[in-house]
């Protein structure tokens, strides 16, 4: 058991830090510090391409596909330095962290050659087509259908909560390919081009007034027959494997954003004198502890390496961070007091902490609600009986 980094790893840290600092104080200084998923998209596409051409876009991938075969420690270091440099949140998080690893795991050589270099080069932004109006927590209740027509799959249905769909190039879709099937059987995993007449994207306005996610409608939308990952009927297996990648190294980068948010709460408390209030001090200390433990939980989960195995740290991670961040949003407002409830300008747009308060309500819902997480923990982690199910 060892927490420290080796001299070689520290040298790698210096290399990442130098490059990132140079970019963020030079050519890309204008997009430094952006954390949302809606601002300056054009420039951030250029940034994705810059990462790709310098070989920093997907360092954990194999060299053969544009990665660096980076060790877990190196990926941890890169994630930390990326955030420390103030580099903007990755708009191709889904491509790099989810679509790529899933294609690596399930794709044919031909499919890998078709998609991976585009993602690695930062030219192809991806979004995720899982949830539907009647398939939220019950994801297997997908109704979107795909039927075979000549050399194409033809897709009809509706997805919802598709983050980034309004500027993505590709979407992976879980669709029902076996007529009359129900539940996890008969689903398939399709990789579809967003730029086609059969796909329509409508933004959804959220409680903070912004619109980062969408409804996505498929009306005779098409993809070629060989754009299916795995075989017909393997969709559930592929979709679940993809979710396991969500607990990967990207969590470290996400934590650096949390660090930034906690620092903002700390700064606000110092600025308005709440830092002297003993109750606030206790709560800030507890938040600090929670964030530190998140880091070491992630390092435990990554050091375990085998993401497929049942691992307590991995199984509990989602509810842990989501609950922590929602709590931080509330603490931020407690620190600000009533002043936090007045917008700074004439439009319904919020500075960091009030926005955190509002936006973090999504954290305990998306990617499996806290209630679903507790079911998973109880059933997979503790071996308790499964929830009774109604008739499909």
């Amino acid at each position, binding site marked *: *058991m060892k927490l420290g980094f080796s001299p070689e790893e520290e040298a790698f840290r210096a290399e990442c830090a130098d490059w990132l600092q140079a970019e963020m104080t030079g050519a890309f200084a204008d997009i430094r510090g952006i954390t949302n998923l809606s601002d300056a998209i054009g420039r951030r596409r250029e940034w994705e391409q810059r990462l790709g051409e310098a070989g920093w876009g997907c360092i954990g991938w194999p060299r053969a596909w544009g990665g660096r075969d980076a060790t877990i420690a190196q990926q941890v270091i890169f994630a930390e330095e990326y955030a420390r440099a103030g580099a903007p949140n990755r708009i191709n998080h889904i491509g790099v962290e989810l679509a790529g690893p899933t294609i690596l795991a399930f794709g044919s050589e031909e499919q890998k050659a078709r998609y991976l270099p585009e993602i690695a080069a930062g030219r192809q932004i991806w979004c995720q087509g899982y949830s539907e109006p009647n398939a939220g927590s019950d994801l297997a209740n997908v109704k979107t259908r795909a039927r075979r027509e000549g050399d194409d799959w033809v897709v009809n249905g509706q997805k919802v909560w598709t983050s980034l769909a309004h500027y993505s190039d590709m979407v992976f879709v879980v669709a029902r390919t076996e007529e009359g099937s129900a539940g996890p059987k008969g689903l398939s995993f399709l990789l579809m081009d967003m730029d086609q007449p059969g796909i329509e994207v409508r933004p959804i306005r959220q409680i903070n007034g912004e619109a980062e996610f969408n409804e996505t409608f498929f009306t005779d939308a098409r993809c070629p027959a060989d754009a299916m990952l795995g075989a017909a009927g393997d969709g559930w297996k592929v979709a679940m494997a993809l979710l396991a990648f969500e607990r990967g190294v990207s969590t470290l980068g996400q934590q650096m954003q949390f660090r930034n948010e906690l620092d903002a709460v700390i700064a606000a408390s110092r600025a308005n004198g709440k830092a002297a209030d003993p109750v606030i001090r206790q709560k800030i200390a507890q938040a600090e502890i929670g964030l530190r*433990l998140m880091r070491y939980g992630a390092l435990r989960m990554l050091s375990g390496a085998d993401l497929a195995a049942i691992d307590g740290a991995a199984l509990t991670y989602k509810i842990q961070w989501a609950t922590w961040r929602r709590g931080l949003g509330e603490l931020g407002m407690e620190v600000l007091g009533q002043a936090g409830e007045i917008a700074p300008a004439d439009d319904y747009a919020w500075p960091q902490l009030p926005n955190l308060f509002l936006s973090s309500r999504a954290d305990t819902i998306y990617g499996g609600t806290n209630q679903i997480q507790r079911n998973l*923990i109880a059933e997979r982690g503790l071996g308790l009986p499964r929830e009774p199910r109604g008739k499909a």
Partner: protein
Amino acid sequence: MEFAFTEEQAMIGETVRGFFAENATSERTRKAMAGEGIDRALWASFAGELGLAGIGLPEEHGGAGLGMVELAQVAEAAGAQVAALPLLGHVMLGQALAKGGTEAQKAALLPRLAAGEVIATAAWEAKITAEGNRVSGEAAFLPHGALADLLLVRAEGKAWIVDLKAEGVGVTGHVTMDQTRPFATARLDGVAAEPLADGAAGWHAALAAGWICLAAEALGGAQAALDRTVAYSKERVQFGRQIGSFQAYKHRLADMMVEIEQARSAVYWAACAVDEGSDEATISLHSAKSFSADTFFMCAGNMIQLHGGIGFTWEHDAHLFFKRARSIQTLLGDGQWHRERIAAMVLDAGLGVAA
């Protein structure tokens, strides 16, 4: 960076879990509770046959070497069985001597501690004054103090070793809520005592080891409370179903696991940080002690609730966990105290990402 047990550490973990599960049985612990609060036979085989009392103590003085990670593994396994062992004072005095003792003190005392021949206790806060090498005053809340041979106490900016069998010492044992770690008060009247060579380093090391010991005991206790409650929830049938199939019940168990996994990260983060001399050692210790203690209390409280009436009986072991959890929460600084230390680091000094 590899935040996982080495093969050797995994073996140590397996050995100590097996030892405590087999020997620190409820029956034996209850016998100790009704008596002096120590299972002396357990302590003898812990120190003698397994050599575990020497973990964390230097090999040249009869110790087993190794560090805080291994010490945490031992304390975690002991905590899982709520073993009645004088471990806390033992690790505190051992580390105080190892890091702050004179060569003569180390040579004289460390081999006896490693062999389990002496029982040690330590005072968190004491009203003690020193005149020359004689100490006077009162040291309260001494864990296993009524049976201890040696006391580690701080006075006048120094750390002292007091022989509790010496002249001028009066020790009063107390009926204590946690009968596996009863408290005593020592009154000292001009007792000859030995200062450590480096009191600050010794006291610092004693606290680090004590906090890790308590946090790890709490982790083991919390996990055991969860495991035992899960087992019960699969046996017990009401309304024609295993009670563990009810969502209200499952979700409480899931919440326990969420806290326990964080406590596990906390304990081994702190143990590693101390072993590696990391900048994070201080914040990790305050985090581990406060978080693990709260986790244990939450889990032990749930253990009683989720067992229903049987969990409230003397016969069931739930109260052993519950009382140990409460005791750990207040030993060596309560949660508020530790969190205030962290608040001071974060809010008053400014602690960036790097720290």
